[in-house]
């Protein structure tokens, strides 16, 4: 058991527990905080996979922007500080069974792939060269230039859609008298 394996097991356990608590927490605000812990666990997993850039991107986008957005959205509703009803209904045994079968199937596929995975890819690139390769390939005509530009159009579309849906004073869906 190397140190990395121990760290992976601990991080994986923390992430899984946090993920379970997200869906079973009776208070919405607590669910948001457990979500932040689960996302932080994923960032640590990226570091263990020797990809610092994706770990930092995970923190910068998920924890800094999306988690705050989710908590603000939760605060826009009413049932924030109160305890809600129990989070499980009568069919939870059946749902648990289905989830376990899905998990077993995914693990079978993953373990089969593990034996034949190309081991050379991630180990060869130095982190610095990897980042430059990513930057270059984002704008290279033979590589990902079209998805790069389409991504910006997609972002603007999301912005326009959100403004149309959530605009307050010009007859949007939610006209509050808040402060």
């Amino acid at each position, binding site marked *: 058991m190397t140190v*990395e394996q121990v760290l992976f097991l601990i991080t994986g356990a923390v992430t899984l527990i946090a993920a379970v608590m997200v869906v079973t927490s009776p208070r919405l605000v607590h669910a948001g905080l457990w979500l932040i812990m689960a996302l932080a666990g994923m960032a640590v997993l990226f*570091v263990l996979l*020797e990809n*610092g*850039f994706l*770990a930092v*991107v995970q923190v*910068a*986008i998920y924890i*800094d*922007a*999306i988690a*705050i*957005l989710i908590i*603000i*959205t939760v*605060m*826009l509703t*009413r049932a*924030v*500080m109160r305890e809600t009803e129990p989070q499980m209904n009568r069919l939870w045994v059946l749902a648990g069974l289905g989830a376990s079968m899905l998990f077993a199937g995914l693990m079978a596929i993953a373990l089969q792939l593990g034996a034949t995975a190309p081991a050379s890819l991630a180990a060869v690139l130095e*982190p610095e060269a990897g*980042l*430059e*390769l*990513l*930057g*270059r390939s*984002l*704008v*290279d005509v033979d590589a990902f*230039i079209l998805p*790069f*530009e389409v*991504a*910006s*159009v997609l*972002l*603007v579309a*999301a*912005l*326009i859609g*959100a*403004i149309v849906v*959530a*605009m*307050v*004073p*010009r007859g*949007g869906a*939610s006209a*509050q008298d*808040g*402060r």
Partner: protein
Amino acid sequence: MALQWAFIGFMFLIGLALPSAAIIANQIIAPRKPSKTKSEIYECGMETVGETWVQLKGQYYIFALIFLIFDIEAVFLFPWAAAYDKLALYMVLEGVLFILILAGGLLYAWRKGALEWV
């Protein structure tokens, strides 16, 4: 490489531990005389009426969303900027096009009045 990230983890943990030590020292040294008035919620000397809950305006959501869009844009642009030395001019112009499209989105938000603090 892993050692560098371990250092970052250590710094974060120490950053959590130092204020905890200060707060624990405070709770040991300070007197502890709880009374009903002391645990009341502060409202400029008056009693709080009603639930402690304010409904937020949708404006906060819009600001957080615009920040999200620009954050994702920055995450796309950081590798482009990190590889800047090796890029040709047309590649730089493609990045500028990316920024221009997003500036167009900001202009739309401005004209629609989404950036006002109501």
